[in-house]
């Protein structure tokens, strides 16, 4: 713990994260059809992510607070750039190719949006007033819109969730919240109209996947079959027929929870959820312990965003929410998302372990 303190690492939270990463290794191995190369790449990403966590933890929160607007603007610039000259992959333009590494600017925004919103809101005493609220919403919706255009509905939803959580934690007044809900309800038809056909299909499909079992309903039906056929104890590691015979689409990424639930059953799924709750809960405890509003709000919204990450993914795989393409955090294979997530946990840890002077 002494070493942990010096490295600005919270032992309990770190333990929870490593447990989840460990589970991830097993599930990715199974989901990939025992692909050792892929497992190796997953391991390397985990190591890179751990480094990101360590580095992020060293940043003192007041520095973060100062950098917040700049990080946001850099992120926005990258988002615009990606639309102009981004690398298209499977119909979606999400990547910037820097020769050595490709990365998704939308990942930066996962950190930059809550940072910027919290920065705006904590410049003045809480609860926020309407102009600040509108500004905060603008800082949330602007990047979210750019991400939707790519199109990447999943990440956009998460960005909006993270911004709204920050606003909520900042003590937004209930009447303001009701106003917001009213505005959303009023613009919903327009938003629906703007969605891609496949996105509309996904939402329609959620309500009745069996209407088109071989088309838009295929993903959700197959993943529900995987989850449901597992029963209480599951089919055993590497023995899920839905996973091993490739009935589950996007097995190693977005639908990896279906693989896990098929092989480890209700018991395994419950244990996994408890593990996630532990990580979220410990993060919220850390949020409690922070000494300033910025840190508290940022840690709180990052921790809750993480939870919603998990919730939206599991709800989508089990057919509670429509299919939006987001991975199961800390377990799914791939992407820059693992690095961003771990950096977020680094920020959470750093915010609570750095001694701060009261301003």
């Amino acid at each position, binding site marked *: 713990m002494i070493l942990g303190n010096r490295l600005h690492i919270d032992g309990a939270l770190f333990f929870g994260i490593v447990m989840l990463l460990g589970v991830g290794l097993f599930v990715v191995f199974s989901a990939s059809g025992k692909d050792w190369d892929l497992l190796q790449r997953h391991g390397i990403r985990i190591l890179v992510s751990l480094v990101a966590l360590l580095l992020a933890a060293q940043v003192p929160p007041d520095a973060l607070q100062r950098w917040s607007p700049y990080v946001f603007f850099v992120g926005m610039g990258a988002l615009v750039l990606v639309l102009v000259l981004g690398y298209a992959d499977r119909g979606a333009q999400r990547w910037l190719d820097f020769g050595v590494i490709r990365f998704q600017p939308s990942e930066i925004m996962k950190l930059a949006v809550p940072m910027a919103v919290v920065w705006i809101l904590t410049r003045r*005493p809480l609860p926020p007033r309407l102009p600040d609220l509108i500004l905060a919403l603008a800082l949330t919706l602007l990047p979210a819109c750019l991400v939707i255009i790519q199109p990447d509905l999943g990440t956009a939803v998460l960005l909006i969730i993270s911004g709204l959580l920050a606003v*909520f934690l*900042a003590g937004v007044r209930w009447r303001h919240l009701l106003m917001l809900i009213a505005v959303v309800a009023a613009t919903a038809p327009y938003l629906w109209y703007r969605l891609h056909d496949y996105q509309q299909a996904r939402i329609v499909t959620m309500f009745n996947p069996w209407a088109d079992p071989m088309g838009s309903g295929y993903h959700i039906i197959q993943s529900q079959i995987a989850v449901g*056929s597992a029963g209480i104890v599951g089919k055993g590691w590497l023995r899920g027929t839905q996973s091993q*015979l490739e009935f589950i689409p996007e097995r190693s990424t977005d639908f990896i929870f279906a693989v896990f639930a098929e092989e480890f059953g209700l018991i395994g799924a419950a244990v996994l959820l408890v593990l996630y709750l532990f990580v979220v809960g410990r993060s919220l405890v850390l949020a409690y312990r922070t000494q300033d509003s910025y840190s508290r709000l940022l840690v709180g919204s990052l921790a809750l965003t993480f939870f919603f990450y998990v919730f939206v993914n599991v709800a989508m795989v089990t057919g509670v929410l429509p299919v939006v393409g987001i991975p199961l955090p800390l377990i799914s294979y791939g992407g820059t998302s693992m690095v961003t997530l771990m950096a977020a946990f680094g920020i959470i840890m750093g915010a609570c372990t750095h001694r701060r002077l009261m301003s």
Partner: protein
Amino acid sequence: MKSFLKMGVHILDPKRDSSITKQRLLLTTMLVLVLTMVVLGRLYFLQVVKHDRYRTLSVENRIGLLPVPPVRGRIFDRNGEILAENYPVYELEVIPDQTQDLKRTVRELNDLISLSDAELNRFERLLKTRPSFEPRLLKHSLSYREASLIAVNQYRFPGVALRASLRRFYPYAGLTAHAVGYVARISGEDLRQIDRSAYRGTRYIGQLGIEAQYEDQLLGVAGYETVELNAHSRIVRSLDQHAPMSGWNVHLTLDVALQKVAREALGNHRGAVVALRPETGDVLAFVSTPDYDPNLFASGFGLHSYDDLRTSPDKPLLNRALYGRYAPGSTIKPILAMAAMDHGLNPKKNFFCGGSFKLSGRDRPYRCWNRDGHGDLNLLQAIEESCDSFFYQLALELGIENMSSWLGNFGFGQTTGIDLNDEPSGLVPNRDWKRRTHGEAWFPGETVIAGIGQGYLLATPLQLAVATAAIANHGKRVQPRLLAQFENLETGEIVPGPEVRITANTAVDSFLLDTAIQGMIAVVHGPRGTARASGRGAAYRMAGKTGTSQLVSIGQDEEYDADSVPERLRDHALYITFAPVDRPRIALAVVVENAGSGSRVAAPIARKILDYYFIERLRRAAVTPRINDFG
């Protein structure tokens, strides 16, 4: 703007901020717990409440039943000659999903085995229809060389597969087409009528002849393989196998060598030959010309050839032996002779033929084929010389009802019961029938021409053969049969075909029969017999009767001149015969369309067939003994 300025003066209050946020953190923590319960509840619902349903679905997902088609039974003639068999062919299939570069793959395959434009076009069309993980046919019936080329280069072509299947083959092609029939691809029409589960994996079905008649036995029983499939319907492993049962081999009563002789004897004529074993009904030969190559139905026609077959004026698709309906002409005279004797005609009584016959009180003469007249002749001589005037008089005295009833006894106007589908019954008229169908009374003149087998009378070559066999059998009419036995190749079990069946046992006085047969013998061996040219020098004794089936009625004073009548309107030549007379072994009906006279054309054909059957065949058998030759 105002509020922005105002905000600057606000003093931060960390304590208040902290309590606000902490309160909200508590609220969100509750939300976290509630949402977690929602997810857990959903998992409980899927994994416990609905577990059985999803377990079933998951099993159905991955378990596939692959039909394994049975091998169709083969068809043999009475001597074990193969008439229908199966030989392996290869089809080339491409699974687009599994190729690395579909266009390049097709191009390289084309370099290897050269594909036709039609094949490439069909492939292009197939590409657009089904999901791309399913195999598409690129080329069927690969030659052995092509299949080998693909096989050795297989490693270069992921997603390309050779599929072996069995194709029906008729080694005798057209020779046996009308009797054996053929198989063709199962059509949409067929699908509505068959039990689809029995045809899983089978693509051909018997369409005509024996192939259709014994379809159920030939087909066999489909097997299946239980396999584990992945999401792309690729077989991961085999879980269970249930072997198919081959169809029964069908052994026919046909003698393909005799069939061949009959076919050659018919030459380029359109016509039919049916040969029966009188005492058993075994169909020894069943020839209809012209014929067609039944293999085309299995292998596929060229662009026009099916239409050519269908529209040809020669009607090669028509099975004349079974469906051809001809006026029997003078071939029924022996039967009418028996009927007349049964009604009191004294066979010794002479009758004068002056070359024509008149109904009393009418002017119209009914001509005898011999314009000069036969002079005085008795019944036996009338049969021998086929005197028409004699039989005009005989018919008039007998009446149409008696004639019809006697003809019926010998199977005219009725189906013979042969094991082939949709057999026509032919036509034997009587007064009732005339009134029913024509709404008219029966005219005496119609009775007169019925006496020489013209008018409404219609018979098939098969009926003629059956009637001939019945005469040879002394009144016992047997049901003709093509099936000798079924043979199960796997168990060795033999199931004999239908027993010999006597369909009518006419209690004909043997004196009547002997007289009729005497007349028929005289036709071949008598000094004035109409077929005496065909009986000359025969090493065995035959009984026969010539016949001519008129297509155009000749006016009273007109002369029938074969050369002036268009070929298609010329008379059909008919001949029935059985031999040897003391112990008949074969009964034969020969019909030659538009060939003129029975004695000149049909009888010599019969003689060739009989010569083969009694001399040539036995000589060959002595060199290479075979089972069943004497059976």
